[in-house]
């Protein structure tokens, strides 16, 4: 059973509840990317360095969490089938991994958040398939779905062929047609999925998105809302630093969805998080996924807020409200003041903090949307970008055009 209910709106931002079987997710939500399988064995939570430490947070390993419960950071997580072979594993191990669904392993049996299994289109198509130490597997839509289903996911998405800003027109059309064909095949196997099926669309502006939707509709035997439970907007990662493009893409995708009557479906933005998130929520995005919290930690960066990072040794834990930073155990870890710490232990706590910062912003945003006052949303956005010189014009533009014009047409009389 899958449902998505919008419980409050403020301007174009919406707060929703995504219900999949007996799990519920409050949106807007960020799915942190988790590599459940990192080459290791079950005793080591299948390994993966910092990835492993993050899994230990998710799986309540008290030695890593310091006894605190951090499950609120992981109400819904994203994992990609392309990451299965990241660590050069042998085919036998891959088969062993896929023998059990994620929650069937003892170590993850308590995990009750949603698992979004991505097809990993970008990486798989770039590599030409899934490649391990002693195997190479061509991946098509059917094979991708088989692997996704083997993970025991709550949400699955079709294998897509992401476009790139530098693609020639013909190249882009070919990719879109391939994605559309995959979507059609994916829809045929809809009944095998005990959860939500998301459809990927691609494009940076309205005409491109219109084509993406058209090609998919032409391939499908039934209307999109009957075959799919959500829309996932992809191909934005190469433009992740251009917030103007991101806002245009999400907002044009919403417009297409409205015009085609799928506005009740949740909209997921693939691979994007961080500073663009508030603006994308303000134009109607519901969920996000990203590994940026982890990559920042791996690069030694501690998030001060959605916009700024500092090297870990310059972090001021006192000015952070997150539970990680207010726990002496994690402070000691992040400062490398405990004995026998591995880098993954230090960086794992930093990653948890970085994720907490992003989740905190979305939590604030959910509360604001619940108040239903778009002006409060505008105030929040203004405050968030207050000191971000290069970024704030995009936020102001969005507020001015879509929430509350700064200079009303009638506001011209002088005192």
């Amino acid at each position, binding site marked *: 059973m899958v449902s998505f209910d919008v419980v409050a709106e403020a301007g174009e931002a919406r707060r929703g509840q995504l219900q999949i079987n007996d799990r519920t997710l409050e949106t807007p939500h960020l799915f942190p990317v988790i590599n459940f399988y990192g080459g290791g064995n079950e005793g080591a939570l299948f390994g993966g360095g910092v990835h492993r430490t993050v899994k230990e947070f998710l799986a309540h390993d008290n030695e890593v969490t310091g006894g605190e419960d951090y499950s609120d950071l992981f109400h819904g997580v994203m994992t990609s089938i392309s990451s299965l072979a990241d660590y050069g594993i042998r085919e036998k191990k891959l088969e062993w991994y896929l023998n059990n669904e994620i929650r069937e392993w003892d170590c993850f049996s308590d995990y009750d958040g949603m698992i979004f299994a991505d097809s990993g289109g970008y990486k798989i198509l770039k590599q030409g398939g899934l490649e391990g130490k002693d195997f190479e597997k061509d991946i098509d839509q059917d094979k991708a779905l088989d692997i996704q289903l083997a993970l025991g996911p709550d949400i699955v998405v079709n294998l897509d062929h992401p476009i790139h800003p530098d693609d020639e027109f013909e190249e882009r059309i070919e990719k879109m047609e391939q994605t559309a064909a995959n979507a059609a095949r994916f829809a045929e196997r809809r009944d095998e999925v005990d959860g939500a099926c998301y459809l990927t669309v691609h494009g940076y502006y309205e005409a491109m998105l219109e084509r993406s939707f058209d090609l998919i509709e032409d391939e499908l035997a039934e209307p999109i809302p009957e075959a799919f439970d959500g829309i996932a907007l992809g191909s934005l990662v190469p433009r992740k630093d251009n917030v103007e493009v991101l806002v245009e893409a999400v907002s044009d995708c919403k417009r297409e969805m409205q015009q085609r009557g799928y506005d009740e479906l949740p909209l997921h933005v693939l691979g994007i998080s961080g500073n663009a998130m508030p603006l994308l929520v303000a134009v109607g995005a519901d969920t996000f996924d990203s590994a940026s919290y982890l990559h920042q930690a791996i690069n030694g960066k501690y998030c001060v807020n959605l916009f700024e990072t500092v090297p870990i040794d310059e972090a001021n834990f006192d000015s952070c409200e997150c539970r990680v930073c207010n726990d002496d155990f994690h402070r000691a870890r992040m400062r490398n003041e405990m004995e026998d710490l591995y880098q993954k232990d230090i960086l794992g706590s930093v990653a948890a903090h970085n994720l907490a910062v992003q989740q905190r912003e979305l939590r604030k945003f959910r509360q604001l949307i619940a108040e239903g006052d778009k002006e409060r949303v505008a105030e929040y956005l203004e405050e968030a970008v207050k000191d971000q010189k290069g970024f704030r014009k995009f936020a*102001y533009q969005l507020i001015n055009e879509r929430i509350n014009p*700064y200079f009303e047409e009638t506001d011209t009389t002088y*005192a």
Partner: protein
Amino acid sequence: MHKTPQVNEVNEFIEIASDFEDPLEVIREALSNSYDADATQVDINIEQDEEGRNTLVIEDDGHGMDEDDLSSFFDLGNSNKDDAIGYKGHGTKIYYKSDEIRVETVKDGTRIESVMNQPWAKLNNRELPTYSIEKTDTDEPSRTRIEVHGFRAGQGFDPQKLTYNKIEHYIKWKTIGGSTAWHFTDDFHRMDITVELSSTIDDTRDQIQTDNRLEFSPENRDPDGELVAEMMCKHYPPRELTVALDDGRELTIEVVGMVGGKEARNELPTYGKHSAQFGIWLAKDHIKVERYNDAIGADNEFFHFFFVANCQELELSANREKIRNKSGDVYQAITDELDRFMTKVCQDSWYQKYIERRKLEDKKRSIRSQESTLEERRQRTEEQGGLSPSNSAEVIAMLERYSANGAPETIKIADFQMDDEVNAILDTEGELENASLQVKLSDFFEDETPLNHIDRFVCWKLGDLDSLSQVERSPYMGKPIRFDFQENVIRYGGENPRTIPVLELAEKVS
């Protein structure tokens, strides 16, 4: 033992009086003083006698001066005006640059007449000038009249340079006469201003009559017509921006302004070039001091904007031309908030449309100019009787024409890269050749381009044969070179030179 530091009073007077650079600052100081005295009318008269001596007469209907006020008027740094423009007690010292100062003022039934003789001469003679005081009872209403005789103001008061237009623009741009206070404060009071110049200075018009309100050019948000963007103008209504400092203090910035095209801006009484006048002005007492155009950001051109941002927390230099507390947190907070405010203005949909319209009109102008250029080109083509290549694309066209019209060999362009040394790959009867296509062969050698990869030259004309002959006289890129135009080849190299054929099209294509 304790010692008290001494002040050289004469030097200080000279220093402060000399700090005023623009002689018109005397008008600014007079207007500020009258405004501080709650005057509703101030009249300024400037005369010049035959010897070129200036006399300034300033009269206002303000609350006048008592003996203490008069002391402040003549003293240095002894203002009794706490919350006024002239709180420093520096401004009136500009009058010291004169031969005589006469003050006649009425306050609360007492008239005081005061005279200071030769203030500037005495100061320069290391002597502190004194002033007389004569008091009488009167039933006149309060007023003040100040006469400054022989004002030594330098070239600014030169009759050749002093005009009504110049003074009027100065008043509106640099003094309380160009105040934006009327948009904001409840305690604003209107003050009418007249300025009269003697006919020896400017007899071209009647006296200036204005008041202390700066008015923006009329709004013209969406004019009709084809090329009208320069006339467009929008007012941005007054806003009070509040900023909290780290120490808990709150600053208020009062900002008001307009955006407009050149024609709209020309309706303002500017005092200088547009590039030096427009943008974002920081102001104190609603009098503009310095611009802070960084607030507009690199994406936008500052001269479309005319905003005045007033903050009473700004600290000014003695002559009010500069902001002194730029390194402090107050200035930082003001400019940060202005950055934010102006970013919002730049996102305003009218502004975006204005910029779009400007671009569109620029394109239209460019098309018009192209049309006239096109006309000239057609005329030139007719005159020369057809194509005469002046660029490599036209050489290609000629080559195609040559091949299609019974040439001994069929040469086709297989590939073309405009800026490469081998700019063309030719398909000559199925064989690929690296070629250099040139309008004139001589151009190639003027650029000293290497010949290493060139199998053939195709040119419209050989060009400057003298310059080619000159090239032959010394090694070209280290090797001997010969142009053999009998055989239509270039021989390049020492003992066994390479032979590079040259196809000159002009002779072969009619």
